[in-house]
């Protein structure tokens, strides 16, 4: 169905759409001047984070135009939410949000485990998968509170798009470094 649409039949469409969007946003990021007050390392981190966000966003948008997927919607929503939070209290919230992103809430997880343990009694044949499924729920954006069936569906789609994203980003990186090395060698020759 939607899965087949993307990868085997026409692999180019999603990739090219993503590439177009991502390059556009890369250009935008490049033109944004760094804030003068922060250290270079922080600028670097901030900018690479921005690039990652741009990559995610353009991936989600590239997917979203053809099919409505929970994970793409979740990515877009999260980016929006973060942007709003940053705008609201600028000086400290960015770090805080990213911190919360890096390590998931432990207390919440424990609560989830309890919930799942109740479920175990009902489907005791899936006992061993439940921990994995929870992990998967954390990894796939928008996977929280999804039943296993649709979670796997989302995961398959997300995985395909992620692979495409990595490929495109790698090709862009390759191109960049190639052109750079070329120009460097040229300048040396000159």
């Amino acid at each position, binding site marked *: 169905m939607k*899965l087949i649409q993307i990868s085997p039949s026409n*692999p*180019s*469409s999603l990739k*090219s759409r993503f*590439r*177009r969007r991502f*390059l556009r946003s*890369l*250009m935008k*990021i*490049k*033109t944004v001047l760094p804030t003068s007050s922060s250290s270079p390392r922080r600028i*670097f981190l901030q*900018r*690479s*984070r*921005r*690039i*990652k966000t741009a*990559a*995610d966003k353009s991936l989600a948008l590239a997917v979203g135009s053809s099919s409505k997927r929970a994970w793409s919607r979740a990515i877009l929503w999260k980016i929006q939410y973060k942007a709003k939070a940053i705008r609201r209290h600028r000086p400290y919230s960015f770090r805080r949000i990213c911190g919360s992103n890096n390590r998931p809430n432990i207390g919440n997880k424990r609560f989830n485990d309890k919930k799942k343990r109740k479920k175990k009694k009902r*489907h005791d044949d*899936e006992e*061993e*998968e439940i*921990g*994995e*499924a929870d*992990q*998967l729920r954390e*990894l796939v954006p928008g996977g929280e509170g999804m039943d296993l*069936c649709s979670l*796997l569906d989302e*995961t*398959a789609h997300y*995985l*395909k798009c*992620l*692979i495409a*994203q*990595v490929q495109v*980003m*790698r*090709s*862009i*990186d*390759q*191109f*960049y*470094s*190639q*052109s*750079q090395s*070329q*120009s*460097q060698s*040229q*300048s040396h020759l*000159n």
Partner: protein
Amino acid sequence: MDPPLVNESSFSAANPSSYSLAEIWPYPINGSGAAEVGLRMGNMGHGFGESSGHRDGSAEESTVTEQSGGGCGRKRRDLSSEDESSKIVSTTSSANDLNDSNGKRIKISGSKNENGGSKTEVEASSAAGSKPAESSKPSEPPKDYIHVRARRGQATDSHSLAERARREKISERMKILQDLVPGCNKVIGKALVLDEIINYIQSLQRQVEFLSMKLEAVNSRMSLTPTIEGFHPKDVGAQSFDATGMMFGAQTAREFAQGSQTEWLHMQVGGSFERAT
């Protein structure tokens, strides 16, 4: 009352899991009495739970069966029209071959909906369309038109059928995922496969992070230190052409043609513009 009609048209429309009537009731189709009919209806109503549907009681036999298949949710209410005798029959016969809880539930549903409309003739016809010979041959092996996986010992109530359908769906999706993740085909066991998938996704996400850092490094270097790149805006076009040709040589020309070239050019021009200023 021909079985294929009941199979195809009625249930596949109502059920997203595409279980046909025959799949759900792996018993032979024989015409028989009204008491068993009531029983049938009770079981079916119980089995399908709530899905919307409509039917008119005055329709002739075949259409009634069809519609009742489509509107399986209604049967719960139609159940109410059963009289006490049919209820008794249902409980006893279900005690015969189904488990006790099923029978109890039927009884409950029957008593719950006692104020529903009485459409006995509909029930009679529709149930005649469905297969009433349950009590007589409880464990007969399924015939050729029956696709259910229920074997002798397996439960045939709708919950376990739905569960089985769900499990099949899950394993199907697992297979798709296994094809996506390299080296995952050899792994046996759902938990291990899921582990592999998780690891793969994590690695990909980390790769994206790493690549964005790398891109940032290159990106900023290109924009901040314009003197390193010693080419002028005039030879930008030719150079980007070369570079794109090189890097997309392995990929399909179609993809390359789809605006990516212009994009690269645009990027190059933009970058050089920035560098020039």
